[in-house]
């Protein structure tokens, strides 16, 4: 199990949850951050899988 990918997914979820809590002007910040963390989670999982083959 790749704990780092899970951690990044958790960070993505937290970022996504904060999107409605912020002014429209700055809403892109948590949105992009959530996307970045999902990408990092996917990359981390692929890295973990290739190392554990």
């Amino acid at each position, binding site marked *: 199990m790749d704990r780092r990918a899970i951690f990044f997914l958790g960070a993505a979820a*937290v*970022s996504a949850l*904060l999107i409605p809590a912020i*002014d429209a002007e*700055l809403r892109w*910040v948590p949105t992009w*951050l959530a996307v970045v*963390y999902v990408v990092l989670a996917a990359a981390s999982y692929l890295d973990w899988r290739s190392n554990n083959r």
Partner: protein
Amino acid sequence: MTDLALIAVIAIALAFDFTNGFHDAANSIATVVATRVLTPRLAVVWAAVFNFIAFLIFKTAVASTIAKGVVDQDVLSIGVVFAGLIGAITWNLVTYYLGLPSSSSHALVGGIVGAAVAKSGFSAVVSDGLSKIAVFIVLAPLIGLAMAFIVMVIVLQGSARFHNVDQLNRGFRKLQLVSAGAYSLGHGGNDAQKTMGVILALLIATHKVAPTADVPLWVVLSAHTAIALGTLTGGWRVTRTLGSRITKLQPAGGVAAESAAAATLFFVSAHGIPVSTTHTITGSIVGIGSIQRLSAVRWGVAGRVVWAWILTIPGAAIVAAAVFRLVHLL
């Protein structure tokens, strides 16, 4: 009498700025010291200089947020600001004594909110401004973490082409002086402005300046001087917590952590958002630690940091509200 009280509370605000430097500013040098690029004494001087000259680079958007965007301006008075500052300073000293890297910035926001609520109830709070600050309590370290992680991956990929590891490390040690300077600029730009905001609020409340006025130059210079002097005189305990206890850092990691944290601080300062420099550099250091595996991060220490974050605003608010009530009883 009012002028004397005003001068006294401005002096307390500058003392708070000094304790901010004492408590928070040393975070600027955590990684430089941890990687032994500079001795603690030299690193502190380096950080203080960049803390001071930050006023040449940043506008005063963060100061405006503190003065006008946290509590209703009609509620602000010398008594409210006094109680808020005492609440924040008390919280800073307690967490300093405990060696916890809590946030001076959030202590200040919590203190002012607590005193304003004690005076006029929860309607005194500007909910939009406070929610923006609250959201960035969480976002700032997450941004720092993600950026540090990405920068470190790029650095590691680039470094893989070099065969001379010693030469590479020497290069990163020199680069760390630049990244530490950039981080100290970002730190000075964000943190000194919180004191400027408090003094601006006082000047507006006592009708010394118009509600739409910018921060006077003497306020800017005195706030940067106070934080730089604070940096010069303290912060070593908190530096040790961040620099060496969260994860083991090499020069390349130090460069990545500081660059990511500096970029985060430059961004939030440009948008007028007061954030914790401690939160930001902690997130960045955790990002570096998690490059290899999550177990490289000492989560026990990181967990204590998170508890300090959660407790800071309510803790400082309760102390400030008690001080406000006490002052009114006397």
